[in-house]
């Protein structure tokens, strides 16, 4: 992403922060990122983190202060005044917080409530991690600092006077229906369904026009809007210009003013230019990543759906109470609190000269529960040539039966496929069976058998799931003829050695697993692999669905 674009985005955000919704900044911690966030300092953003509780956001009773003062002390929430809020580590934002921030962003300004602008700093590593979709949809601008070097950048300071002048021009900017038409059309061509996107793009184009001192929105401003607002939302690449695509005639029955505006702007921009602009700003491997990304986002939105932390404050088997302050999600354990305060009452009452119970902040105890975590079933499916030739249909059938079982038990499922020389997380953990089914049906087959890569991807998916508090189980479906090693080279011996190595790693990580042999004849090599994984091997001809699900059920402790 060129620095010019970054600079423009930051400037526009400062011109009209609230109408743009905010900024999704995707960057790992670096001096460069500090330069970018530093440039936003004049907006004096207030920082929040993903573990923030409701009291801090929306205000409430300050319990510690109340107890110390002996009268109610209320705090005013960060969001009560609107303004600019900076959320760091946004990729870890739980669905609940995302929903509440989304509500604050949607909030209609009325008496006593101001609009909020959110800057979400997303440090997600792979395509699996990212901002929850609920927020990504509401933030207008997107910036990614990948591939930008320190030398390309320059310090950024926007003079306050220039901003004020731009804001003044923004207020006077005339309404331009044709700009809106063009933005909506290009959004449709890019496969952007949300109605928020064109609206945000329009506001972005307006801010750009105001900043550049244009008397009305010009094609240049529209291009800027397409680059900054549309590029990262695109879900479909429109046909490029060499595939001659006749522009459909656009009747305009509503406003008779269309010809007039055309005259006003002799250089009126054909819609393709906007789409091209967005296309130029697209990441190069977009199409390849699209499928994965969308799934990944859906997964993120699952958030704390039900697979939340193992140590819950809300439900599950009770654990001993712990010292702490009740806040969002943490409930006071009244009895334990009183018990903690009891021994000191004589002393405290004599000091305070009261006859009431005296409870100090330090006495507060909160409840804790141990929650049984959600299970996630990771299928690692071999779709290589040998497998496809023999038993692909049966393997798919078996998985579908297991999926139906998983549905009944409300487990999450994930799908890893391996063929050729790589393995992909085709479907990140989800509860949506429809999606799993769809992905499974569309699986291509053919190529080598990179068993080691498949196991590795499954293991990393399992570890990610575990870090989210889920209990993962891996089910490997293969015919066992590994012939591609981890470094993507053909060769049976190296491939088998790699596979065994990863299998041992799976055993060491303590993730439950099962190997399902889908070959025509049972492979002894797979038995050895299963032993290395610390699991058992079932041959598909014998592995009827009930048997399979019973085996998996036993693994998951169902």
């Amino acid at each position, binding site marked *: 992403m060129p620095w010019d674009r970054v600079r423009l985005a930051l400037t526009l955000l400062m011109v009209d922060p609230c109408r743009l919704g905010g900024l999704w900044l995707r960057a790992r911690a670096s001096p460069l990122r500090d330069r970018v966030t530093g440039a936003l300092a004049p907006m004096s953003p207030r920082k929040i983190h993903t573990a923030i509780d409701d009291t801090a956001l929306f205000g409430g009773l300050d319990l510690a202060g109340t107890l110390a003062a002996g009268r109610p002390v209320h705090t005013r929430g960060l969001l009560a005044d609107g303004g600019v809020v900076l959320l760091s580590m946004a990729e870890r934002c739980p669905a609940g917080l995302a929903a509440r921030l989304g509500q604050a962003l949607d909030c209609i300004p009325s008496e006593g409530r101001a609009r909020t602008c959110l800057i979400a700093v997303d440090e997600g590593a792979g395509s699996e991690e990212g901002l929850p979709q609920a927020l990504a949809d509401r933030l207008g601008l997107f910036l990614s600092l990948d591939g930008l070097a320190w030398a390309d950048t320059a310090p950024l300071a926007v003079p306050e006077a220039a901003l004020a002048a731009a804001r003044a021009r923004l207020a006077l900017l005339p309404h331009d229906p044709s700009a809106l038409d063009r933005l909506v059309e290009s959004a449709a061509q890019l496969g952007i369904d949300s109605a928020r996107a064109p609206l945000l793009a329009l506001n972005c184009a307006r801010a750009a026009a105001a900043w550049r001192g244009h008397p009305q929105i010009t094609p240049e401003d529209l291009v800027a809007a397409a680059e900054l607002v549309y590029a990262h939302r695109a879900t479909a690449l429109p046909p490029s210009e060499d595939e001659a695509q006749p522009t459909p005639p656009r009747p305009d029955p509503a406003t008779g003013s269309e010809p007039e505006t055309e005259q006003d702007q002799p250089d009126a921009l054909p819609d393709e230019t906007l789409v091209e602009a967005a296309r130029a700003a697209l990441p190069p491997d977009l199409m390849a990543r699209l499928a994965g990304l969308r799934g990944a986002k859906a997964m993120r939105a699952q958030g704390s759906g039900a697979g939340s932390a193992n140590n819950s404050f809300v439900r599950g088997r009770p654990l001993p109470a712990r010292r702490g302050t009740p806040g*969002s999600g943490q409930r006071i354990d009244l009895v334990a609190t009183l018990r903690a305060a009891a021994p000191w009452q004589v002393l405290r009452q004599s000091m305070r000269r009261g006859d009431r119970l005296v409870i100090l902040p330090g006495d507060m105890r909160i409840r804790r529960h141990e929650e049984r975590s959600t299970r996630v079933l990771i299928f690692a499916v071999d779709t290589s040539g040998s497998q496809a030739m023999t038993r692909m249909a049966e393997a798919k059938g078996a998985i579908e039966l297991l999926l139906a079982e998983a549905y009944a038990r409300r487990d999450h499922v994930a799908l890893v496929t391996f063929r050729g020389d790589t393995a992909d997380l085709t479907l990140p953990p989800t509860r949506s069976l429809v999606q799993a089914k769809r992905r499974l049906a569309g699986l291509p087959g053919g190529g080598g058998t990179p068993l080691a890569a498949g196991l590795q991807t499954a293991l990393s998916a399992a570890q990610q799931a575990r870090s989210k508090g889920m209990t993962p189980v891996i089910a490997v479906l293969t015919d066992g003829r590994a012939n591609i090693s981890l470094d993507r080279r053909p060769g049976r011996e190296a491939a088998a050695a790699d596979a065994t190595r990863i299998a041992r790693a799976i055993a060491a990580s303590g993730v439950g697993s099962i190997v399902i042999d889908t070959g025509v004849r049972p492979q002894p090599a797979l038995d050895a692999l299963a032993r290395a994984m610390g699991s058992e091997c079932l041959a598909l001809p014998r592995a009827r669905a009930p048997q399979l699900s019973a085996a998996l059920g036993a693994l998951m402790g169902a």
Partner: protein
Amino acid sequence: MTPFPFSAIVGQDEMKLALILTAIDPGIGGVLVFGDRGTGKSTAVRALAALLPPIEAVEGCPVNSARPEDCPDWASVTDKRMTTRPTPIIDLPLGVTEDRVTGALDIERALTRGEKAFQPGLLARANRGYLYIDEVNLLEDHIVDLLLDVAQSGENLVEREGLSIRHPARFVLVGSGNPEEGELRPQLLDRFGLSVEVSSPKDIETRIEVIKRRDAWERDHEGFMAEWQRQDAALREAILRARVALPLVRASNVALHDCASLCLALGSDGLRGELTLLRAARALAAHEGADEVSRGHLRRVAPSALRHRLRRDPLDEAGSTARVARHLTEVLP
């Protein structure tokens, strides 16, 4: 700024009709809206708040009681004057705690004044109104259980922290979500009277109109509201008229027979399907000024009333909407 006017929402007719029907007859029992982001789900619900006729309630009552004698004892309501207030539409955010939903011991009063008092939760505030859950499919299971219980009994029972309290909690449940992100438990699905599917409009003209109106609403708020307020007011009048007409709408044996045979053909579980279908058709008849439920009314509300009640094969691709449509043409030609 006032919310976006309900009548200015472009398209999404099924969703709008479902919301209007529940406004006419709250007994229909809620609306579930499933669809993509940015398709106007929450806009419609917020707009509903401004559209609905206000309710009469006791001034100081936390559960919006309609008569002074209905106020719960624990609330110790002092101010028993009647006031009109807008129909409550309460948001139930994701990640909400149980305390906030059901209400809990008022810690502030317990600690500062040593009193054991009940602090009402969202369910109390939603009484006689609407409870709106965005992303309902991501709601945690224990909150869902709680809602199921209350939605069925119409009463919230709190037994915790030494409190034993009950209060009425009759509300219309409105849920929205994106089915790609997770599914809803069948038990909760069944509690929603109507379910509708929304999607982004597919043609450019409609999309431009959507953005145009929304933009006009932001830019020229006063003018836009003035333009649409009249239509909203007309709709409000229509809802009020339909509420009066509702008890007078007859349902003939033929209509009952139609309901039953459709549900039988679809194999929907339980009898809630028939009941909701009939109620919704009756509300639609009242809305349209008819004095009897006709087959046309049934046909129009059947997809919303039944599509989420079919026994579902989780791996069925075609979706329930197609199944309902197929049986509709067969059973109710």
